[in-house]
């Protein structure tokens, strides 16, 4: 049964299981997991991490990583809040400026990774540190002011569903569409799955990777905009407060995307983000000791990914006595990284190895 399901479906099954357990546990405290306020809390928790994780999915599909996201988020929140400075008329220019600046950071990341051949881990760690230095040197605290019209983005909702979550899901739909239906998407899967094969088959493997990095930074920029909207100010530490770098990577992998690139989906990622959000909500309602929350998060990450990996092993129908255990998130695409675009559900893993 497990064998026939694609990973994304498995993620949502996991989510449903978490929801059921959550509903039972929450009801023991006399609350309701599905009350409007609680749904709003869960979805709000999803929005920021969701934006970041959508971008992170792109780079991970391209067999890279983005560790600079927390600082891009902080910078975006400051850029937006300072440009708006409380004026309604400046909302659109501020958003455009933020997108432009974050895109430039993403371009830098992408160029370091492709042209200079710096591993994504190192390149984005380095860019992140440089941004941190800039933020710490130039900002001593919160700055700027977000006008009320833009605060509505983070504060309003349709019934219990925050506008920000809807925008995040809209972005997910757009990105998913790009991945599945455009040349860029196919090339990204190809380049992430196996750069050499991609090159031999005529894909210029650098462009999709650069594009993925730009996408990741811009998504982090959106997350920063949302945070500015919710906080009402820009903050130089708001990105690092949430350890969004590691959490977003964890959410992407929890969503079934393979850390070494070439295979995965945006909707899986959204599922992963939702699992984290429900779990966080559950632990908060149950008033868990904050230290134990981290213990639970860590265990869930390991156990869930172990289950997916287990399934993959069964599904693969091992050709060799022992399937090669490749480097984990190396830019090096392994021979068995099944890198054909959009094959998640159409081609079974064993087929693509042949």
């Amino acid at each position, binding site marked *: 049964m497990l064998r026939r399901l694609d990973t994304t479906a498995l993620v949502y099954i996991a989510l449903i299981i978490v929801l059921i357990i959550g509903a039972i546990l929450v009801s023991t405290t006399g609350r309701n997991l599905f009350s409007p*306020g609680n749904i*709003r809390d869960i979805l*709000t928790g999803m929005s920021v991490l969701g934006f970041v994780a959508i971008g992170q999915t792109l780079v991970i599909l391209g067999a890279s990583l983005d560790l600079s996201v927390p600082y891009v988020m902080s910078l975006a929140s400051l850029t937006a809040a300072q440009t708006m400075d409380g004026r309604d008329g400046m909302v659109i220019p501020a958003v455009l400026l933020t997108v432009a600046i974050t895109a430039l950071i993403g371009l830098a990341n992408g160029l370091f990774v492709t042209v200079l051949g710096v591993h994504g881990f190192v390149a984005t760690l380095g860019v992140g540190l440089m941004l941190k230095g800039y933020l*710490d040197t130039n900002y001593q605290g*919160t700055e700027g002011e977000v006008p009320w019209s833009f*605060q509505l983005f983070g504060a309003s909702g349709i019934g219990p569903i925050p506008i920000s979550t809807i925008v995040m899901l809209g972005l997910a739909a757009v990105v998913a569409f790009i991945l599945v239906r455009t040349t860029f998407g196919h090339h990204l899967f190809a380049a992430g799955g196996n750069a050499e094969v991609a090159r031999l088959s005529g894909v210029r493997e650098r462009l999709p990777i650069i594009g993925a990095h730009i996408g990741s930074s811009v998504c982090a920029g959106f997350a920063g905009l949302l945070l500015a909207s919710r906080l009402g100010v820009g903050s130089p530490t708001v990105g690092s407060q949430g350890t969004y770098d590691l959490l977003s990577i964890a959410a992407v992998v929890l969503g079934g995307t393979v850390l070494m690139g070439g295979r995965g989906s945006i909707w899986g990622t959204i599922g992963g983000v939702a699992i984290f959000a429900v779990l966080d909500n559950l632990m908060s309602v149950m*008033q868990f000791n904050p230290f134990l929350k981290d213990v639970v998060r860590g265990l869930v990450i390991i156990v869930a990914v172990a289950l997916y990996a287990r399934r993959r092993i069964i599904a693969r129908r091992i050709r060799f006595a022992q399937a090669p255990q490749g480097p984990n998130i190396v830019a090096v695409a392994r021979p068995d990284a099944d890198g054909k675009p959009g094959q998640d559900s*159409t081609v079974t893993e064993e087929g693509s190895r042949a």
Partner: protein
Amino acid sequence: MRTGLKPVLRTAVAVVGASALIALAGCTTDPTVEPGGGEGGGEDSSEEWFDQELYDRQFEERDVVPDGPEDKPYLQMISPEMGDTSEFESDGGKKMCFANASISNPWRQTGWITMNEQLKDLKKNGVITEMETRDAQDNDDTQIADIDYFISEGDCDGFIISPNSTSAITPAVERACKTDKPVIVFDRGVETDCAVTFIHPIGGFAWGIDTSQFLIDNLDAGDKVVALRILPGVDVLEQRWAAADKLFGEADIDVVDYFTEGDPAEIKKVVSDELAKGDVQGVWMDAGDGAVSAVEAFEDAGKDYPVMTGEDELSFLRKWKETEMTALAPVYTNFQWRTPLLAAEMIFNGEEVPTEWVLPQSPITAEDLDEYLDRNEGMPDGHYAKFGGEDLSGFPEVWQDRVIP
């Protein structure tokens, strides 16, 4: 993914389209969310942390003899302006909702333990019968969500908020105020005065004044002071430094500052390097829980002990006692964690509380040192001497074993 995604995609596009239409037709803002009156208080800049008016006020408050019972420092208040709370007077057990910034450092952990012991004792009176806590783990966004959750789901009779940061939490605090239930803010402030009471010790400037004045009094002009700071951008810490930096400059003390993230290994490296450059006569800290390694750097380099200001954390007090160095332990009053629950009880009883409840914040000097060491015998190193929970029923085991709920 192609076939698997298509329906999902279509649904998603449909959902987004439909919701966009709904949104355009009549944007239904959450009823609890409205434009706040505060709007950041109009103060647009935090470029400079130095604020002359606040500095002057805190300078004076340091010498004011507080009102209130002498043996209960957590109920004392400096120059209070009492506010009427009769609108909140009511009978029956009350549930408080506490939005905590975090318990990620020893100071907050100690306070959190004390607060829980205070809660246990208060339950016996039958006024405050329950407290629900959400911990934001140092994240502004989480804390805003926590407060919104309490407003809609918490079934709260009152709110206690320990803000993670000043401006960012302001709108959420205003939303809590709109519920017409009493809101108590403590530790860091917010840019609105809608809360019934804002409980805090005198403040960061007072800390900076006390500490730098002590170093200036014990050093000569031209002497070198190393300032060890935790992080940039945190208002309570930046204010301590702003005041100290100003006074050091006026007294012609040569001061150099570093950020160490409170890591003793980093502190030791920084101090060792400064000692390699030349003699250091003084050490100033904006929070004292890595102080011992700074002292040890002097020992390992074979240099004389500096004149030093740390904090009332026990590891520093014990090292001070052992070395008999010239030191001062400034206090960022830890017993303020008791006051919010006591204030809540007063509010539901209709008793007046100060609109701004300023608690005393007096440093531990060489004369007090022995007394505070005696009082805290058996406590762990990371405990804070002026935690003020000696009369609570869990004393001393709960603090000794550091039972964190």
